[in-house]
Structures are given as structure tokens and as C-alpha cells.
């Protein structure tokens, strides 16, 4: 659909679009692992990096923010669970309300990290051609024995290809429900059931068709991968980003700055 940004590739000529998919993939892995180790300072720094990345890739902000609304529900639920059920004693109000300062801090950190991971994933899929990603995964997994690299790569690229379609399908079902006043239902379980059944049915049918279409077009896994060597200048930003991630994790920052408060 024309109005969705999340997990769609958009052709472009920005530096991020031109960055070799293998290097970008490594950078993305380093980022994802690093983000889960970072505290407030690191997350602030990488929020800035994310903003720069968005600007460099010319990702349209308005549709992106619209997509974010869907994530907001999930993140809100995670925030509430973390904030309310953390077993600490520093209550914000009284002990009868299970909201603690530690819980709030942890919930903020978790949601911030998840949001950044989602933003970087959007940026990655926005600037990486699915075929390039597929080749990058095949190249990466190729040397590992007993792993069907091409099949795994195909599955990843198909997942990325079909996720937006499933989301579009969900939109279509939501509209069909709304037109029959299904959104007026008070019971959330009935609402979920109404949404889930048609989406699952369509997704499974589509998966069947896809398997048949792949066979019909002679899909095979034994084709050799033809990729040029990784250009040196593409490695530099990957190394720089990996270094930045490493320096932003508490282990390194603590080592450099000595003893620091735990929230840093």
C-alpha cells in the first residue's frame, strides 16, 4: 500500500541506500545487541544517530509516525507490565499501588530500547533491497555447515516481503469490521477473534499459494552465490558504528569513567 512505511523497501540514492547490505547487516546486528546493553546516555546518543539516519535516508516522517501508532499499543503494554510488576520497595505513592521508581526506570529503558530497535529495523528495511538482504544472509550463513543458507535467506526476505502484506490485510479486515460496526464491540476478545480469523485464513492460504508458486518457478537451493567482495570504504562506517556501540555500553563507559551511578 502506498501509505505504509514500516518494513517496506523504498528505492533511493541516499548513502544508506548505497551502503553494502552485508555491512549494513553487521551494523544492524551490532546495534541491536548493543542497544539492549545500553543505559540512558547510550540510548540518547543512538536516538541522535537514528534521527541522523532518518534524515540521511529521506524517510518520510508522517507515514512513519502513523505506523508507530500500532507499535505504541505494544510498547504501552510492556511499559505498564514492567512498571507495575517490578519487585522493589521504592513506591511512587503508597505500597497499595505497585508502581515503583525502579520499575518506572526499567520500563522506560526497555521501551526506549525496543522503540530504537524498531526504528533502526525500519530504517534498515527502508534502505535495503530485499534481494540484497537475501544475498547478504546467504553470504553470511554460507560457510556454516548444515545450515541451508539460501533457504534461511529466502525465508527472511519472504517474511519481510509478506509482513507489510499481512499488515495491509489486517487493515482491510479492520475496515470490513468497522463497516459492520464491529469496532462498537465492548468485549476485546470478540474483537480480536473477529480480526484474527480472517487474517490467519488469508495468511495461510497465501503461504500455500506462495509455496506452489515457488515450485512452479523452479526454485532451487544449489545455485552459487555471485557477490563481489565487500568494498573497503563500506567497511569503515560499519566499524565506526560498531565501535560507537561498544563505547556506549556500560562495561566500556564504566571502565573509562570509573565508578558511575547505575542509571548512567
Amino acid at each position, binding site marked *: 500500500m502506498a501509505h505504509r512505511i514500516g518494513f517496506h523497501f523504498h528505492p533511493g540514492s541516499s548513502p544508506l541506500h548505497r551502503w553494502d547490505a552485508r555491512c549494513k547487516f553487521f551494523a544492524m546486528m551490532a546495534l541491536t545487541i548493543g542497544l539492549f546493553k545500553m543505559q540512558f546516555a547510550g540510548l540518547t546518543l543512538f536516538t541522535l544517530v537514528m534521527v541522523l539516519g532518518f534524515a540521511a535516508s529521506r524517510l518520510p516522517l508522517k507515514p512513519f509516525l502513523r505506523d508507530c501508532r500500532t507499535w505504541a499499543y505494544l510498547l504501552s503494554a510492556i511499559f505498564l507490565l514492567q512498571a507495575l510488576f517490578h519487585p522493589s520497595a521504592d513506591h511512587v505513592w503508597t505500597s497499595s499501588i505497585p508502581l515503583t521508581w525502579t520499575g518506572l526506570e526499567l520500563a522506560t529503558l526497555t521501551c526506549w530500547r525496543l522503540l530504537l530497535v524498531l526504528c533502526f529495523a525500519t530504517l534498515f528495511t527502508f534502505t535495503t533491497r530485499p534481494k540484497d538482504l537475501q544475498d547478504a544472509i546467504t553470504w553470511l550463513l554460507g560457510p556454516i555447515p548444515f545450515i541451508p543458507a539460501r533457504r534461511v535467506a529466502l525465508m527472511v526476505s519472504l517474511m519481510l516481503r509478506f509482513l507489510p502484506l499481512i499488515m495491509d490485510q489486517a487493515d482491510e479486515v479492520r475496515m470490513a469490521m468497522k*463497516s*459492520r460496526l464491529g469496532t462498537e464491540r465492548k468485549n476485546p476478545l470478540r474483537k480480536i477473534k473477529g480480526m484474527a480469523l480472517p487474517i490467519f485464513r488469508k495468511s495461510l492460504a497465501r503461504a500455500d499459494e506462495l509455496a506452489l508458486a515457488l515450485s512452479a518457478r523452479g526454485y532451487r537451493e544449489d545455485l552459487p552465490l555471485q557477490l563481489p567482495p565487500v568494498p573497503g570504504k563500506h567497511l569503515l562506517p560499519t566499524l565506526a558504528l560498531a565501535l560507537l556501540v561498544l563505547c556506549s555500553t556500560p562495561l566500556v563507559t564504566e571502565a573509562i569513567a570509573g565508578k558511575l551511578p547505575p542509571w548512567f
Partner: protein
Amino acid sequence: MIRLENLQYKYADGTTALKSIHLEIQKGEFLLICGPNGSGKTTLIRHLNGLLLPSSGRVVVDGVDTATNAKHALKRVGMVFQDADSQIIGETVWEDVAFGPENMGLDSTEIQERVDHALDLVGLQALAQKSCHLLSGGEKRRVAIAGVLAMQPAILVFDEPFANLDYLGVTQVLQQIVRLHAMGHTIVMTTHDVEKVVAHVDTIAIVHGGELKTVGFPEKIIPQLSQYGIRPPCFSLFGEKTVSWLTE
């Protein structure tokens, strides 16, 4: 009954899907909106019941602006989607047709009556307890129509109702639509396949590139179809009189 005033719709990425559309749909009218794929037909009709709200301009249903009261439009305008599988929510035919009336908060006797009546109208009473996923394409489309009819809207909107249907399926669905029009419903239908329905419509509107190019009686519009990338009906190509798909 429905008035579109200077309707504009833009997707969030800035693509203009509809440009300055003015259109009036009268009570009891059978309006065919045709245009090639991607011309904006579906986006246009989704404004009629408030599923989409205009970026500028307004859509007025029975004097009520959809932007101020979308629920009113949802009750007055029933929509049958192009893909029946997206619309079918219930496990059985009966359960699915009852979905709309249940959402309207009706009591069980009223729901039963409405579902039975809707199933009678589309000739699916015998399949009431059948699983929806076991139905044929034409039957699914008729379940979708029954699901909308059970909500008793005054206006029925059909989005490409003949897509992916065989000849029998097309005639069955067309028969239902023509009968509903004869019963007094206002019908709005989108299609790029004009031939199947043109014999029964009162007015044709051509949408092309998000613009409403022309509206008028079929005899006036049919000669213009090909210039907008829509295949004219066979009978017009051979210079013959209008032929209905329901005539054996």
C-alpha cells in the same frame, strides 16, 4: 442522499488519491463507478460510509457530514468488499450474517429475524449452518451481501462484486443486486468490467487518475469508456442494443 463536495484524499506519503470530486447520488439510484485499476474507485467509495475521511472537502450522507458522525454513515451505507474473505468473520454462514446486527445491539429475536430475512434474500437459507470457508466464491460473495443486508442499510455499496467469479457466480450476484435495487435500495457499484452490469444501471461515473472525469446516463457515457482505458461492452462495439447478463 449522498453528496460529495470537492472531495480530496491524500495518502500519508503525500500521494493524491482523489482530486476535487463533486458527485451527488440520488435516492433509489443505481450508480456504476468505473475506471481502470488504481484509478481511485475503492478509495472513493470508502468515503461514502466514513471508512476514510476526506483530506479536504466533505461527504454528506442524508444531510450528515461523515467527518462529524461517521457512525451514522456506517449504519446508512452498507459496504460489500471486493475480497469476501476479508469481510467474512463468522465461522458459519449464520454466525457471520448475525455479526452486524449483534454489533447494533439488537435483541436476539430481532437478530434472528434479520438474519433469516437476509439469508432468504440471497437464497442461502439452506446453507445457514455451513462453514464459511467451505463455500464457493459466489456463495461467499452472497454471504458478504447478506451480512450487510442484515444491517438494513438504505444504500448498498459494492466494490468489484464480480471479481474472481465464474459466469454462474456473476449471474447469481447480479441477480441479488438487481433485486435489491428493485426493492428500493440505492446501489453504488465499482467495476472495470462494465459489460456485466451496464444494462441495469441508471448512471455511470468514470474515475481516472483520481479524478471524476464524467457522469451521465449509460448511453452518453458508453462511447467514452475506451478513451479512459475501460473496455466498452460488446453490444456497443457491434452497434447493438443493451444486453443484460441475466437474459438467457
